[in-house]
């Protein structure tokens, strides 16, 4: 490709990039939930540590029940051990998969926005949108929070505009402040 061709190509890319920003988008399976909406709609919000994962047939489908140890409760009332049930998993030689359903490994910690009706197991609100994983820098020990859907440009149906939101690499302390602020401002 000649220099002129590359330059032309670059301009095409530049314009395409601008067009992309102008094109509104929304996750195929997910609709936008702003952080404040997540806080409002969640039955409970907590920092949880995964202690076990088990998949089994139940109600005619393969479900995965993830058990968490409650580290810190930010909203709602939770016992010391919380179970979250999500569709999909592996049982025997069958593998049930759904894109966007968060999966957890034992030992992993996350702030999770839980949602559920009374008498039913918890679900993760908005799937990847309600999952905020915690990474600890092995050298500095600093913990940072990243939302599974952090990279999603999301469409707000009320303003009919898109925003590149989400939480990515936010220090835990800052995340807690943001969460606390949203909890204080939440709609009664």
């Amino acid at each position: 490709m000649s220099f002129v061709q590359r330059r032309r190509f670059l301009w095409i890319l530049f314009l395409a990039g601008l067009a992309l920003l102008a094109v509104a988008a929304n996750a195929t399976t997910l609709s936008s939930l702003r952080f404040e909406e997540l806080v409002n709609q969640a039955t409970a919000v907590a920092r949880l540590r995964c202690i076990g994962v088990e998949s089994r047939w139940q109600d005619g489908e393969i479900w995965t029940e993830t058990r968490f140890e409650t580290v810190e409760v930010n909203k709602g009332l939770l016992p010391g051990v919380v179970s979250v049930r999500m569709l999909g998993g592996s049982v025997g030689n069958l593998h049930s998969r759904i894109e966007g359903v968060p999966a957890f490994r034992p030992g992993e910690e996350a702030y999770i926005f839980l949602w559920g009706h009374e008498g039913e197991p918890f679900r993760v609100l908005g799937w990847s949108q309600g999952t905020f994983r915690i990474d600890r820098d092995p050298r500095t020990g600093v913990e940072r929070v990243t939302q599974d859907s952090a990279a999603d440009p999301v469409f707000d149906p009320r303003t009919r505009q898109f925003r590149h939101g989400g939480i990515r690499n936010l220090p835990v302390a800052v995340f807690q402040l943001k969460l606390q602020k949203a909890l204080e401002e939440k709609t009664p």
Partner: protein
Amino acid sequence: MKLCVNRICSILLATFYAIWFAPIAQAYSFDMIVPDVRQPAALSGGSACPVRAHQLSSTGSIAVRWSTALNSNPVTILTQNQTASGRLTEIEQGIAQSLAVWSGVSGTTLVPATFAPLSRTATQTACGPDGVNSICFDQADMAFTPGVLAFTRVITTDRLGVQVGSSAVSTQLGQILDADIYFNPSDSNTAYATPLALAANPKAYDLESLLTHELGHFLGFSHSAVWSAIMFPFAPTPGTFSGMRPTAQQPDAPLGDDDRTGLRVLYPDPVDAVHQGSIRGRIFPANPIALPASPPGVTGVFGAQVVAVDAATGAVAGATFGGWSCVSPGPAQFDGTYEIDALAVGHSYTVYAETLNGVVDPSQITNAINSLCRNVMTDPGWPPLQGCVVPAANISFTARTRPGP
């Protein structure tokens, strides 16, 4: 001097490309399955190399039915025709057209005859692991929460001789035994409009775009990070649709080239003489110390999206989720290998690698990443020599390419 300037310009442009491409040009990926090598080789193939989840593609092998049970309060499926029978006909046309989008791609074994005639059921709870592929618009499911519009649940198997419900007994590893598409029936803020009804309902999602995307999962696709691909994890804004509407001349018009290439990789037609090109290579960090110490054995960059851009048109011709390879009897080796197949021959391509830290991040292709390995921790009794652990995707490297020969 001119050569030097050209080289500097090339480096600058390459850097610029990397920055600009990052959010728009990544790759299709597939739902992968590691065969259960604890089973006899006659059932598992004896190899722990990941295989792609896929449907059988012989004539009439894929049957799809859809449930005519529709939510009436609120009405979630919007049609132009308001008569009872007219509504169903219009919805069915949309489903048939979405299926035809995928079977309209040239150079694959997925052809219109692969699909059995679309059928209807009045059962509201038609979706379930019964071996019958179903589309449901009004079936409540315990998986839905606020913010979830629709999903596809795919059941695959890792050995031969397995069936689900009335499905065919698996004759291929990675065979999809049941795939159901669920639309959220109870979100009063969300509606889906057929193509005929979309213009009059600008706040509704385009049913055909979402269906076509979900059918991609149904066929074995994970997500793509090519923004123009139908498998890009974001649908168009309400009131608009993905790509172009299908036509008789171009039934696959809503797809991007990346979708087409992915389909050709997934369902290759052995007699297709056009899409036989492959590009293969490895990605290494400039400093080997940058490789993760754990798990052991990682010798190349894992998690890169390697993209082939048609040098003449600038279109993303195809791409892959790179960083691993596998030779029977496995397991997967994380050696930085990538391979982009099913490219049209006679074209020149520009290839580059980029990290998954743009529009799509690793969490969005979890299935494609996590399903590369099994081990004694995930599967008791797994042969240690065929076990592996998937390393974390590398999302911090900067791509630089060496000049070609």
